[in-house]
């Protein structure tokens, strides 16, 4: 079953994260994700990359956290107004 959902999450001491998520309820995995909001990320291209990398990922707190965390550490990404915890939380808030 294809699900379409969205979340709005104010990152503590940070910015407003707005996520749109298409996911497969049966496999509990991400089909398509769009991460938007008034945060900062350096370099900016990382968000497109993350959206792509997250496709097919299980909607599991630990798995999503580790996936994003390893990508931003590997690529030396700097987030301002958002963080890995916030992104993980915003994504999982989309799950009905």
């Amino acid at each position, binding site marked *: 079953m294809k699900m379409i959902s969205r979340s709005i999450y104010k990152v503590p001491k940070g*910015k407003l994260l707005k996520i749109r998520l298409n996911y497969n309820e049966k496999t509990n995995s991400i089909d398509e994700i769009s991460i*938007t*909001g008034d*945060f900062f990320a350096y370099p900016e291209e990382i968000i497109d990359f993350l959206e792509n990398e997250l496709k097919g990922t299980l909607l599991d707190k630990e798995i999503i956290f580790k996936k994003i965390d390893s990508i931003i550490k590997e690529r030396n990404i700097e987030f301002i107004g958002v963080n890995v915890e916030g992104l993980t939380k915003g994504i999982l808030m989309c799950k009905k």
Partner: protein
Amino acid sequence: MKEQWRLIETGDNTAFTNMAMDKAVLVSISRGKVPPTVRFYRWRPSAISIGYFQSLEEEVNLDICKNFGVDYVRRITGGGAVYHEKELTYSIIISESHPKIPKNIMESYRIICGALIKGLKNLGIESTYVPINDIITNGKKISGNAQTRKEKTVLQHGTILKDVNIEKMFFLLRVPNEKIKDKLIADVKERVTSIKHVLEKEISFEEISTAIKSGFEKEFNIELVKGTFTEEEEELTKKFEKECFSTNNWNHRR
């Protein structure tokens, strides 16, 4: 002798031209063609700019903007949606390796906002920097700022509010929940101010830009010398305006 940086005052332009000019100077600086550059500018017609990561359709009431002749554009910097009307906008573009600009992003916000704070002080306004990207006076925001770093170059631009019309801003912007719009407007009115409100009088754009110019000179211990775009920058501006900032492809990409 003090180090000389370039000051460009471009007056009124469309949102698309303004964003193209900032990017053109960024490319020019990254190629080592010109000194660090401060630009002062305004928006005609008035316009909304949204942050790089924002969804245009989610943030902006596109039909209303079209009806009222308000332009909208996506910035190359992150941050939030801004309605640009009665404000002086600045940009500073400088090589990331320049000794006067901190490597640390938050530190560089603080230093650049420090120039604006010194400038506001010249107008008799005491203000402070509040991370992440605001300058506040008496607890209210008077300036918002956004920075990007690409091609080994720092670009920060931001607004200095001369006057502000919160109702109009919310008329043009979309909010997640229409039912609480009135409360949101009341909240924002409590949190945002302008030079006009603080000084209780109108002052000219020239007075503001003169004050901010000297704020930059003091903060960075440099001299700002009035200049113009190079031919290459003029060409790049046209190119970026046409190929990027005026296109649906760019503005609707999120």
